[in-house]
């Protein structure tokens, strides 16, 4: 048994591990590059949208011009010092979409419409519809996140419904009489997608050791050894000058802890959480109590856990609006990045760059708590493999997350090799992907309520929108009408930010270090209680209310969080009211 307490993740500190002790992970390797581009770096003009002069249609060479967005691009490694190579621009290309390029006049109109408002007397036009035409009415029951895109056709509605059937379907162990449903595990976290993504909403930590842990699990990794061969993405990032902490799945337990197993196999272990209370004093005599979690793994089923094991607790995120997030131009996300905080606002923001299995190239990461997946398809495929143990065209291994060290698990039995080839075939994966892309975002409620508008002003003026960016316009797309060219309001920049030691998991993932998390979208967050019967937020569900979630913000968000602590109680209440209307 190994105990993991909250990670303080102080750079340079020696890890201190052992049962019952805090594990502090090395932070030195996690630091991001701090440099501004040399002057000879060439920029692809059409990819740069300087924030300071958003209307500028053309890039003008010269260092003086290099705004923070340019720096970002450089630091994020989009462009090397060499002449622009295919690889350099690759991660910016939205190869997963069939895009109709924007005209200059369109881009200009979009810049205007997506600029954050400074007027709070009345709602903005179309603010009620956070997903544009894909928005649906806000049902008043637990099904509020389960409707298809509001602009879906009858034909696509069929794909959505069949996908829903697969999303709900309970996989069974092999061999089974229902050939199309077997292949579970051998080790797994859940038997269906829906079981974690409860009501297509968010999961939650167990209430106690007896409660279900199914909608939450631990990701695992260990630092890479120096002699480990470089992965494709590591090679790519190194070539771009991005210094990332290299890690590998645990050699025995793999990339996540599967706490369940089919008959005849051992579960990998059990996640255990204990909480410690932390009192926070707020202005006007108010206070809050945070629950600071500690995690440990009990009953390891495949031998002792390695000393340098890094763990990251994750609850299943809500499922709405994913196809729209996927349709945001990468360039528009990168335009908000500022990895070296050149504008000095204390907010950096880095794009995650990951290797796409489907496209066999680097792509911007958008999905997951650390943006570890580039597309809904890869997110779905990796969840099938890792969470349920279901092989698929992108993750062909029938043993899911099992490692060669888990010989019995590798040996099976498995459910592949029948006419589906994989345990879920291409058709099934496509249907689940389509379903996941089209779970609709419900309409806002009470957008014109004076308290909501006041809270909106507090949200905008306290600096929340520095990361929780309000608006985007999606690509114009061929063959994807539901997501095409919509004004959407996810309230996220989809970038990685240092959130401070309090939230740190100490487990790097791709470009993200142990303190960085992707800004999660906020749309629908006010319906969490209605849909899921709880108000548990953040990556491990530690926050028990929206206020607690705000108070956990640290690092780059520390200043905004401190403003919330200090502001008059009425303003704080209005802020929460605004969030509840999302």
């Amino acid at each position, binding site marked *: 048994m190994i105990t993991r307490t909250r990670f303080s993740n102080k750079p340079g500190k020696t890890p201190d591990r052992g049962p019952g002790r805090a594990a502090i992970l090395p932070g030195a390797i996690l630091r991001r590059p701090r440099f501004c581009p040399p002057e000879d770096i060439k920029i692809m003009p059409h990819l740069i949208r300087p924030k300071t002069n958003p209307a500028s249609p053309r890039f003008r060479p010269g260092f003086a011009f290099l705004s923070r967005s340019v720096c970002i691009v450089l630091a994020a490694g989009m462009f090397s010092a060499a002449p622009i190579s295919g690889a350099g621009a690759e991660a910016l290309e939205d190869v997963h979409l069939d895009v109709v390029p924007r005209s200059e006049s369109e881009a200009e109109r979009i810049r205007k419409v997506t600029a954050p408002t400074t007027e709070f007397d009345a709602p903005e036009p179309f603010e009620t519809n956070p997903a544009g035409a894909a928005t649906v009415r806000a049902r*008043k029951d637990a099904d509020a996140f389960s409707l298809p895109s509001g602009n879906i056709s009858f034909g696509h*509605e069929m794909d959505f419904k069949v996908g829903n059937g697969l999303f*709900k379907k309970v996989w069974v162990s092999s061999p089974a009489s*229902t050939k199309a449903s077997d292949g579970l595990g051998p080790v797994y976290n859940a038997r269906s997608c829906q079981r974690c993504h409860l009501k297509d909403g968010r999961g939650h930590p167990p209430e106690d050791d007896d409660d279900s842990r199914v909608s939450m699990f631990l990701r695992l990794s260990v630092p890479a050894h120096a002699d480990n061969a470089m992965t494709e993405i590591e090679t790519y990032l190194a070539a771009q000058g991005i210094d990332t902490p290299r890690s590998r799945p645990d050699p025995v337990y793999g990339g996540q802890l599967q706490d369940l197993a089919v008959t005849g196999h051992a579960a990998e272990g059990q996640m255990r959480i204990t909480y410690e209370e932390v009192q926070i004093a707020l202005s006007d005599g108010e206070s809050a109590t945070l629950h600071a979690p500690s995690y440990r793994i009990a009953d390891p089923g495949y031998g002792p856990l390695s000393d340098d094991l890094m763990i990251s607790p994750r609850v299943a995120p809500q499922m709405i609006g994913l196809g729209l997030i996927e349709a945001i131009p990468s360039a528009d996300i990168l335009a908000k990045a500022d990895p070296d905080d050149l504008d000095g606002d204390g907010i950096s923001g880095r794009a995650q760059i990951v290797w796409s299995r489907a496209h066999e190239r680097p792509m911007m990461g958008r999905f997951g708590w650390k943006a570890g997946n580039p597309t809904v398809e890869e997110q779905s495929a990796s969840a099938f493999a890792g969470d349920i143990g279901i092989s698929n065209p992108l993750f062909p291994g029938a043993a899911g997350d099992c490692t060669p060290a888990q010989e019995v698990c590798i040996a099976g039995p498995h459910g592949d090799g029948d006419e589906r080839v994989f345990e879920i075939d291409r058709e099934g994966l496509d249907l689940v992907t389509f379903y996941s892309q089209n779970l609709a975002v419900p309409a806002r409620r009470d957008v014109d309520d004076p308290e909501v508008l006041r809270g909106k002003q507090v949200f905008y003026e306290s600096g929340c929108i520095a990361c929780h960016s309000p608006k985007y316009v999606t690509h114009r797309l061929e063959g994807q009408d539901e997501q095409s060219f919509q004004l959407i309001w996810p309230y996220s920049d989809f970038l990685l930010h240092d959130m401070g030691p309090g939230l740190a998991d100490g487990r790097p993932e791709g470009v993200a270090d142990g303190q960085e998390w992707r800004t999660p979208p906020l749309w629908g967050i006010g319906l969490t209680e209605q*849909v899921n019967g709880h108000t548990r937020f953040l990556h491990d569900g530690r926050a028990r209310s929206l206020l607690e979630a705000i108070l956990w913000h640290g690092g780059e968000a520390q200043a905004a969080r401190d403003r919330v602590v200090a502001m008059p109680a009425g303003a704080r209440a209005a802020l929460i009211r605004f969030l509840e209307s999302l």
Partner: protein
Amino acid sequence: MKTSLTAMALVLGFGAPAMAGKAEVLETYADIAHAGYEDSLLKARELQAAIETLLADPSPEALNKARAIWIEARVPYQQTEVYRFGNPIVDDWEGKVNAWPLDEGLIDYVDTAYGGATDENQLAALNVVANPTFTLSGEDIDASEITPELLADRLHEADAVEANVATGYHAIEFLLWGQDLNGTGPGAGERPWTDYASGDACTGGNCDRRGAYLTAATDLLISDLEWMTAQWAEGGAARAAVTADEDAGIVAMLTGMGSLSYGEQAGERMKLGVMLNDPEEEHDCFSDNTHNSHFYDGLGVRNVYMGEYVRIDGSVVSGESLSSLVAQSDESVDATLRTDLNATMIELGQIKAAAEAGLSYDQMLARGNEDGEALIMDAVDALVKQTRSIERAVAALGVAQIGFEGSDSLDNPDAVFQ
């Protein structure tokens, strides 16, 4: 092209002198809804009486009588399903009445091979019938008395798991038939009548609590149907909602027809089962009544379009029809859609014929049963085809596009981001 067609249809629509009024068409629509829910209610009360008899004096005959009435009760109810889509009042309510599939182990004993009770759904083997107290999401529940409130407020979708269906037709179906343990082989559920017997004759244990559950679920079904019938009565909220804006009301009618035909019925209820060869993907799986469930869903779609519904007493509710409205705009569109609806009824009728002759729907789903798959997929194709015609009817009427309205929203500043 589409714009000009739509514009033309608008001109024709508004210009035609003796048009069938949308208001009258909507009135027919609401009248049929009211009659359908009222019929469902009447049948549910008959079911309640039969269950009272069963519990007062258990016998094989009494159980069979209750089962027979349950099957009759599905006839009017399934014809109302077309109202679910396009009418938020119905859609928000429907899950209490007709949710499926369900983890029946929540309610009562199940076969030991049922499995999956521990991790996937902790409540899948809860067995409320056998357990007067239990823990739910960390809270102790007193279920010593099984009431409609316990079912609706505590058990239904407990732990946010949709398969925890504690109420509605399918919960009652399970209590009358029991599990269908025949897979894709012949035969439905075979619950013995003695599951409701008293004293030593009782099988399955807790016969009194099983009876109490059955009573509570039926009472709840009745109160839910009473509520919905009232929504469609004169002055009811559902009737008011659909008649408030005539174009929106017509869209609601067509949305209901198209969504039920294509996504819900052809997709989730039929195609998915064929894909998975899974007898659990059968709508009325305990009773093997799925062929009727599909048939009367289809008939409900036709009822809405033709403005005609045959009630359980044989009387007919009819009035100004959507069909005549479409015909005024485009006779050929109307004729094609009527042909398509009739073709669907023939395909669904063939499934029904085969099922009633002994090849139940779950047998059609068996892997390798090519004839069964063809029967189902022909009906799927017919449902898809009729939906194409429904889309043409929408265009012909010039009412708001159901499909991609707004996908070009940025191009139209006046209608942006609707």
